């Protein structure tokens, strides 16, 4: 079958779906993109801060993919016709306690072994790079590869590239069911008609488990809510680097630390607004902003960055990110349903990993060799655990 005649349906028009479509398009395929909402960034893609921090990625595969992904962004920035506001700012992880310091020291050694350019910083070094930081800061780590990007313009840049090349994008279209026969996908039933399919790609982010259920698969993917506050735009640079609290990383290793909170991330985006996030909460599909969430973030910022001073918060937003039990996405074809591909479950790493995910999935479909060990992402890896 020629590439152009292969009927590929991508469910989800967010960052991941758009990246896959764009990469497939470059290889000569013509997938159809189905998006439930009108806005392409209605889900997780529009509910983030646009941070691309290598430092928050697990040493090994996860980190290597992030490194590769940032390289891809650097290359495709020139190809895309919309400014994606990609900027290699470098980023700092702020360490608040002795326990966090122990964990981070070990973590950074492992990250360096994976080839990442990450250095530890003394508390004095942190203070000179981030003048607003509290006196009792223990130290930090720095990577000059950390970057920021605008996830909204990135999604649109990819989509525009696709649509210009004749790819059909169906907005406001809900997938109602997926017909499958003898363990093979056949047809996607949507609110705007039925579409025959040779391949179906589940890029539905936090809704990934609902889509998987349509072909009879149980997937331990859950929505996890994050709330973010936006300040009024500041003309002058207030923060030179995006900052991430080490609590965010350390909490994954020490449940005691997790009890004290989830930490925060803060950065000043291209337009001058400062984004402060984020909570991490399991509240099913409820994506409301709450006073409680905002006050949690504000308290944690005040404690660590007292020198920031007063800022007017002009709005807040919240969104759902797709959580998986081991923090790795589901990528690739499910062994039990031929033609049903997963590309979801990136949680907070979707922005960083969207480029590499798109390239990997497109390469797999094209029959190319992929340099990463795909069994780590096997969508069936939890299938025998009673999920």
């Amino acid at each position, binding site marked *: 079958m020629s590439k152009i005649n292969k009927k590929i349906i991508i469910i989800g028009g967010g960052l991941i779906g758009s990246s896959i479509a764009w990469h497939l398009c470059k290889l000569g395929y013509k997938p159809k993109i189905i998006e439930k909402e009108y806005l392409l960034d209605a889900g997780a893609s529009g509910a983030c801060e646009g941070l691309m921090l290598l430092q928050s990625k697990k040493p090994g595969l996860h980190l290597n993919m992030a490194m590769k992904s940032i390289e891809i962004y650097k290359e495709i920035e020139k190809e895309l016709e919309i400014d994606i506001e990609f900027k290699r700012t470098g980023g700092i992880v702020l360490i608040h306690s002795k326990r966090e310091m122990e964990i981070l020291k070990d973590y950074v050694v492992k990250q360096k072994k994976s080839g990442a350019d990450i250095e530890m910083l003394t508390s004095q070094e942190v203070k000179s790079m981030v003048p607003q930081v509290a006196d009792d800061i223990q130290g930090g780590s720095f990577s000059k590869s950390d970057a920021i990007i605008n996830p909204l313009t990135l999604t649109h840049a990819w989509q525009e590239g696709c649509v210009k090349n004749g790819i059909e994008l169906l907005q406001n279209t809900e997938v109602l069911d997926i017909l499958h026969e003898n363990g093979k996908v056949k047809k996607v039933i949507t609110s705007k008609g039925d579409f025959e399919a040779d391949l179906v790609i589940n890029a539905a982010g936090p809704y990934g488990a609902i889509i998987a259920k349509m072909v009879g698969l149980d997937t331990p993917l859950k929505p996890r809510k994050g709330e973010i506050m936006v300040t009024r735009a500041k003309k002058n640079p207030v923060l030179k680097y995006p900052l991430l609290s080490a609590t965010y990383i350390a909490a994954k290793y020490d449940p005691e630390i997790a009890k004290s909170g989830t930490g925060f991330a803060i950065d000043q985006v*291209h337009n001058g607004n400062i984004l402060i996030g984020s909570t991490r909460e399991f509240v099913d599909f409820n994506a409301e902003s709450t006073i409680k969430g905002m006050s949690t973030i504000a308290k944690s910022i005040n404690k660590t960055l007292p020198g920031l001073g007063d800022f*007017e918060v002009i709005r807040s937003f919240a969104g759902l990110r797709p959580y998986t039990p081991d923090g790795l996405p589901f990528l690739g074809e499910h062994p039990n349903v031929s033609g049903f591909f997963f590309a979801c479950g990136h949680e907070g790493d979707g922005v960083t990993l969207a480029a590499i995910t798109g390239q990997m999935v497109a390469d797999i479909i094209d029959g190319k060799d992929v340099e990463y060990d795909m069994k780590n992402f096997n969508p069936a890896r939890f299938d025998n655990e009673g999920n």
Partner: protein
Amino acid sequence: MKIKYIIEIDNKKFTVNKGELLLFSLLENNIFAQGEIKSRKRGGYCGMGVCQECLVKIGNSEKLACQTIVEKDMEVTTND
């Protein structure tokens, strides 16, 4: 007859209608950007006091153009 006011926007004089919102006066006179951050122009977007993008200076105080009715001899600075 409708009453007109003369107001000053960025040191230039403009005739506007009494009773209208400052944001409309700005748009009617083709002034779309109220601010410029990192060489990207920004201006009124939501028109209902939420997005903060139509922030201007009136005299010495900051106001949202979409929440301000024009007044006689108002002095407005859009890009500050």
